């Protein structure tokens, strides 16, 4: 961890303390200079899905987490403290028993969904069954539950998952794992495991009519591609979780990030889920310092996926060639200066991160194109046609074109395919698409190194369609390491996670990482930037914490 990053995290922590004090209780007192209530408009490229078990992107997580509270949740405070898991719908965070394989929860009394119906323990099992049945992008985090993998394979929604026992009378939920897995408590703090009423949550996509949840807000999807609205949930009263400051949050879905930026500048939007467009970034940095900040939150990793199952990247030499050929200095420019070059797969700020002794040269230095060309030649794939898949958004298309140019320089016949963001994620995650390589990135879901390795490089992730393991990596060594580390406290096993990082990058070149992005928070003048920026290590910005100036 660099000194700069330590200072940044410390500053964030201080800011969080000063802004929120001890108030992570049930309500939130109006902060000095801010006022409760009011409504805001948020510009966003849109949740990829409004169904809580099917979403994948950060804008979706931001919009859904105020609506769907899990058995556990992350603290709704700014800064590093927001990474701590606290009780959500459950009375407390349980200590695992049976050698780390069993977790027992009890629902709080009197919980109600936003439609007024009571929360039942069996609703939780229904949520997990939907997640598995619909093969949601995060389903791999739950396949460690006894019987979950079989349930997913059999496809019978009426079947029972033996590893989830519920008692609607007492509100008890017992989860039994096949192997200890410390990620479970983090996964149970995410919206995709949040209970929704079984009667209103059938095993199909509820994208247009998401089910009721338990959260400070309820959601109404006016048009999935245009607008959604969060309004206060009058049934919500969970100690320890703030009720939110704003009365209404309107999400305005738009593709154009420059327009989004201009709208925030003009005050027509109050916040944007995306980072200001590269073109406008210098202007925003310079003129709107009082309502703009850049943070290394949430920890993220940017890399090119390499499909190891088809040519040319079934050859390790070809994969190494890509790593040698990347010049992060070029990508820093594409990111408008917001990229911190790195050759680690794990990002700084995540347990297990240790700056790699990078085999492919200094990540802050130039590329070794000669070495890369030599490796491509040795791989036998010189002249091979390679299609670079990327999203058509800004700067993804520019990143894709840079990458295409690099591949062309080292001996491939490179082309580029730029797709709409939603299509891009869907298609590159399907095996039949045969996407050879392309842009991808990952922002931390929860503060656990397994959150990076398992969905992006784990064999279990391949069961989901589309999978996030775009490289279709299925390596016994990785599986063995993941099996061993699942039950370990990540802090105590940090060294092993670092070794796995080294294996993935230096030994096998399964991915071609190039850095970590600093994300930004940009508010309109109406918003209380000083007290309520809502910068959060898990959700990037926690909308529950947003507030307006007095």
């Amino acid at each position, binding site marked *: 961890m660099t000194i700069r990053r330590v200072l940044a995290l410390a500053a964030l922590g201080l800011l969080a303390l000063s802004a929120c004090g001890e108030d992570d209780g049930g309500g939130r007192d109006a902060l000095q200079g801010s006022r409760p209530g009011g409504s805001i408009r948020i510009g966003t490229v849109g949740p990829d899905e409004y169904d809580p078990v099917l979403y994948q992107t950060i804008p979706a997580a931001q919009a859904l987490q105020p609506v769907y509270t899990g058995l556990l949740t992350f603290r709704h405070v700014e800064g590093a403290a927001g990474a701590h898991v606290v009780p959500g719908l459950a009375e407390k965070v349980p200590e695992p028993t049976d050698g780390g394989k069993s977790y027992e929860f009890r629902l709080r009394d009197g919980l109600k969904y936003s439609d007024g119906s009571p929360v039942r323990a069996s609703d939780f099992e229904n949520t997990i069954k939907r997640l598995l049945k619909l093969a949601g992008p995060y389903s791999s985090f739950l396949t460690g539950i006894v019987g979950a993998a079989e349930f997913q394979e059999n496809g019978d929604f009426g079947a029972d998952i033996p590893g989830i026992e519920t008692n609607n009378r007492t509100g008890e939920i017992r989860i039994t794992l096949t192997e200890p897995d410390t990620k479970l408590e983090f996964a149970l703090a995410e919206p995709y495991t949040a209970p929704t009423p079984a009667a209103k949550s059938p095993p199909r996509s509820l994208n247009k009519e998401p089910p009721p949840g338990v959260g400070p807000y309820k959601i109404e999807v006016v048009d999935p591609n245009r607008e959604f609205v969060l309004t206060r949930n009058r049934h919500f009263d969970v100690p320890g979780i703030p009720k939110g400051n704003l009365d209404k949050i309107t999400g305005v879905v738009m593709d154009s990030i420059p327009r989004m930026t201009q709208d925030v500048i003009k005050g027509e939007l109050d916040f944007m889920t995306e980072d200001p467009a590269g073109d406008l970034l210098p202007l925003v940095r310079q003129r709107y310092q009082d309502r703009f900040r850049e943070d290394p939150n949430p920890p993220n990793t940017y890399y090119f996926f390499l499909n190891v199952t088809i040519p040319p990247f079934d050859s390790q030499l070809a994969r190494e060639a890509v790593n040698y050929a990347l010049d992060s200095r070029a990508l820093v420019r*594409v990111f408008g200066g917001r990229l911190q070059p790195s050759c680690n797969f794990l990002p700084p700020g995540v347990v297990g991160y240790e700056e790699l002794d990078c085999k492919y040269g200094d990540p802050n230095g130039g590329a070794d194109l000669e070495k890369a060309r030599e490796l491509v030649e040795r791989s036998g794939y010189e002249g091979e046609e390679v299609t670079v898949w990327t999203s058509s958004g800004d700067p993804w298309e520019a990143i894709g074109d840079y990458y295409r140019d690099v591949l062309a320089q080292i001996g491939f016949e490179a082309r580029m395919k730029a797709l709409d963001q939603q299509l891009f994620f869907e298609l590159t995650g399907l095996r039949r698409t045969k996407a050879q390589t392309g842009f991808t990135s990952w922002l931390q879901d929860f503060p656990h190194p397994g959150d990076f390795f398992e969905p992006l490089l784990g064999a279990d992730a391949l069961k989901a369609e589309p999978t996030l393991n775009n490289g279709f990596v299925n390596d016994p060594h990785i599986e063995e390491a993941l099996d061993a580390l699942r039950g370990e406290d990540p802090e105590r096993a940090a060294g092993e996670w670092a070794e796995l990082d080294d294996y993935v990058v230096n030994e096998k070149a399964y991915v071609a990482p190039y850095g970590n992005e600093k994300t930004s928070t940009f508010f309109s003048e109406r918003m209380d930037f000083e007290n309520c920026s809502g910068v959060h290590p898990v959700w990037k910005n926690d909308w529950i914490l947003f507030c307006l100036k007095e």
Partner: protein
Amino acid sequence: MEERLDSVLPEGVETAVRSDALEETAEREHVAGVGPWRLAARRLRRDRIAMGFGMVFLVLVVICLAAPTWATDVAHTGPLKNHLTDTVVVDGERKDVVSLDGVPIGPTWQGEFFLGADTNGRDTAVRLLYGGRNSLEIGVLAALITTVLAVWAGLLAGYARGFTDAVISRSLDVIWAYPVALLAIALGTALSLQGLQIGPIEISGESKLIPILIIAVVYVPYMARPLRGQVLALRERDFVEAARAQGAGPVRIMLTEILPNLSSTIVVFFPLMVANAILLEAALGFLGVGVRAPEPSWGNMIGDGVKHILTGPHLAIVPGIMLVATVLALNVFGDGVRDAFDPRARIHLEH
């Protein structure tokens, strides 16, 4: 944006026989013995404005055709080559092609990066010329395909009448019913994703053939319908009856008797069709469903440039100027051609 190629040629007899009209005009102008084509050429040469704009178009074509020479010998780069970390010496000072915060260099007015660079450090001037080649290539090829399809559709429908006419005309009506741009965008979005497969022929989604075919197809009714009207009139003429009496079959009559009489209409339509095709391609490129990135076209260059209008206004303005110049030149020249071939015709474009 709604474009409509509106030919208001009546489907009656008097507009059908353009060669007759030209001959009558020739008689009025006391130039007996001069053929209609030569007469039209003579009129066109006298129309200095049309010829001037025709020359502008030719110059633009030549400039765009010279793209490889400029790229190789002057700019020393290609249209797809990124120069993100490179530097260039301008007025004795070494400058980043793209600054650390992602702002590209503006026009240098020298060989390398004459018109500056884009955000990937690609030479704008080189991309502009290659983009022009792509735009012109698509415009001309699409117009050619439209012409071939429209002539066949018009000939078959007009000559065969009855069931054949009904099938062809209703099919054209279906296309006609959609606004050109919307139909093209819908087709472009669908085909750019999965490409096109017609029997054994497979066209990838990134191929330039996709926008060419889309543009060609959506414009067919706008040309085929007036041609059908002319054919309906021509097939009743005496010379067609005479050919039929001599035992000529339908195909021969269509090709040797009717088609030559459609030629002046086709010639008048063609430059206007090219202009419209270039414009539609630009619209598709702007929306990301025309020529696929990273291949340049004026449309997608404008689309990319708009995203960076504050820090690099040249990125959108320069291809915009080239597009306007080309379409304007083609339209004015096309009007001149129309006036030369048939001053009474009212074939025109509405944008």
